[in-house]
């Protein structure tokens, strides 16, 4: 079956005073219909820029998608003009962000903001849209929907605003929802509500979800398929159970070991030494080499490629290349 979304060799760069930062450096992945794919990584790994590139939200001239293709349905999103992209965005392809407050217009009533895509994409009349907006607010579990529709964003809490964002995002029944750290700014009990709701929506509508997060707990709970990014590249990917049970890349292993897990307390946490490399000083090498306990000569001088390792997992690491050569 043809995947719903296919990202091929995506490159996105940002020009800064000190040089060009390759924020996303040749990544490829796909999302199938009804699937939840999680992109996980730490700050600066390029996970958000990947989403921004897909939505055509990379701000030029400082940033630019410099190569690759993003096939969504039958279209290459990177080749569409502004009008064509607008017809898809917010309709078949929707996105929610970490900060719901800054994504909503502070001087427009909540109801109006939910009605906007309904009138634009589904060509509903004002009255129909207004009724539908109230229904959507009810669906995201907010009581007194009529009253909420008539209020302004500053009158609502963060959790409620994120629900409204979800209501707007799913209003036109998107095929794919991109959620960039949707619960990071929320309290844990509210996070549980939002994740629950995303799951329910997905099950009832068959929508696909591309979830971007730094929280491995959220990944374990939501993902079917996991992509681990480090310094602009995919270092490992695989089906969620396999990847958590048997992580291949030393970075993934380190990440999983360094997170304190409730009910599994240890005296000392494992920690990955050092820090993320400066994106301006990258040379052809494995970008993780200076933090890796298995670093070999080849890791410092040549870049490992992402390759399949059986049971659906892929990793970009010389350890597995070497093993192959010796076999």
């Amino acid at each position: 079956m043809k995947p719903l979304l296919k990202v091929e060799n995506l490159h996105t760069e940002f020009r800064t005073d000190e040089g060009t930062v390759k924020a996303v450096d040749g990544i490829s992945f796909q999302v199938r219909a009804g699937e939840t794919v999680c992109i996980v990584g730490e700050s600066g790994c390029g996970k958000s820029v990947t989403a921004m590139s897909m939505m055509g939200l990379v701000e030029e001239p400082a940033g630019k998608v410099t190569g690759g293709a993003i096939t969504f349905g039958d279209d290459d999103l990177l080749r569409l003009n502004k009008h064509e992209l607008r017809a898809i965005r917010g309709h078949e392809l929707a996105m929610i962000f970490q900060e719901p407050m800054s994504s909503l217009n502070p001087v427009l009533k909540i109801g109006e903001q939910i009605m906007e895509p309904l009138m634009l994409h589904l060509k509903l009349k004002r009255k129909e849209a207004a009724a539908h907006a109230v229904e959507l607010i009810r669906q995201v579990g907010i009581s007194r929907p009529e009253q909420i529709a008539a209020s302004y964003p500053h009158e609502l809490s963060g959790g409620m605003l994120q629900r409204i964002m979800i209501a707007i995002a799913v209003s036109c029944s998107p095929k794919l929802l991109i959620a960039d750290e949707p619960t990071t700014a929320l309290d844990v009990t509210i996070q549980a509500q939002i994740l629950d709701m995303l799951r329910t929506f997905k099950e009832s509508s068959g929508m696909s979800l591309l979830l971007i997060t730094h929280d491995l707990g959220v990944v374990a709970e939501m993902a079917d398929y996991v992509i681990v990014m480090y310094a602009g590249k995919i270092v490992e990917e695989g089906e969620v159970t396999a990847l958590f049970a048997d992580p291949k890349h030393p970075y993934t292993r380190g990440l999983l070991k360094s997170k304190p897990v409730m009910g599994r307390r240890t005296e000392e946490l494992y920690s990955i030494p050092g820090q993320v490399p400066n994106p301006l000083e990258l040379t052809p090498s494995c970008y993780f080499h200076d933090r890796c306990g298995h670093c070999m000569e080849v890791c410092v001088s040549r870049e490992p490629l992402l390759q399949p390792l059986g049971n659906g997992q892929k990793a970009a690491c010389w350890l597995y290349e070497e093993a192959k050569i010796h076999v």
Partner: protein
Amino acid sequence: MSEALLEVSHLKKYFPVSQGLFGRSAAQVKAVDDISLTLMPGETFGLVGESGSGKSTVGRTILRLTDKTAGEVKFKGVDVHSLSPAELRRLRPQMQLIFQDPYSALNPRVRVGNAIGEALLDHGLATKSEVRGLVLEALAACGLSAYHIDRFPHEFSGGQRQRIGIARALILNPDLIIADEPVSALDVSIQAQIINLFSSLQRSKGLAYLFISHDLSVVEHLCDRIGVMYLGSMVETASRDELFKHPLHPYTKALLSAVPVPIPKLKRERIVLKGDIPSPVNPPSGCKFHTRCPLAVERCKTEIPLFREAGTGHFVACHLV
């Protein structure tokens, strides 16, 4: 039993809410509403709660960065809130604070070495010639290098800045460090480094921590005893193992079940709380949690539950326990 390092009893901190043109005080936010806790030397007490629970205000009121409304804070037997400014100043080096965002806590134009050393000079705890050596020592203890001493804050990563924040507190040789969400802004791999730094410093220097955090997995890792706050009140306190194995308060149970665990396909019974945290300006009557509590009965709406002992060292405020 040795003497407590910090004893907080019935601490209250209310903030006035002003309204109208002349700032008439119309209502009060009960940010901290009758909180008691005890901290032994060398111990870590974790204060957990969601936003608006008042956990940060507890920390700030203990240090007298803000005045109390009622109650008592005793540090080594001394009532912190009755000290004169000069006496308080003398006490300050012994109780230090570490913030969530170390960057906004550092002056961008002051070299890191000076930022770490200035308090020593200010308090007259070292002479100018001694300071550099002590700063180098503190840097090393926090995993930073000697050449960092002359750099500026912007040259450091988030994790390194938090190390600077810790070094700055540590150099005064305190007995108590209040750490307010010190690892919340950090990435997982860096967070683990800082958590380990906290534990190793505690072992080597016998520090006591009041560790304020919303992250239960971090709190479980670091803390000996834990208190759970909701809307300004303490709802449960217990030792770490007791709290995580036998939580009694429905809020604690919900909180624990809401934390995502990095184990895929793990079947857990999740209690999803309904609704949002109510506004602290107008908290619910009776038990403040009754509006979201899955078990609430009539009595919870009217009667404030007492904070009482439900097992050895396990305190809880709930009618149903």
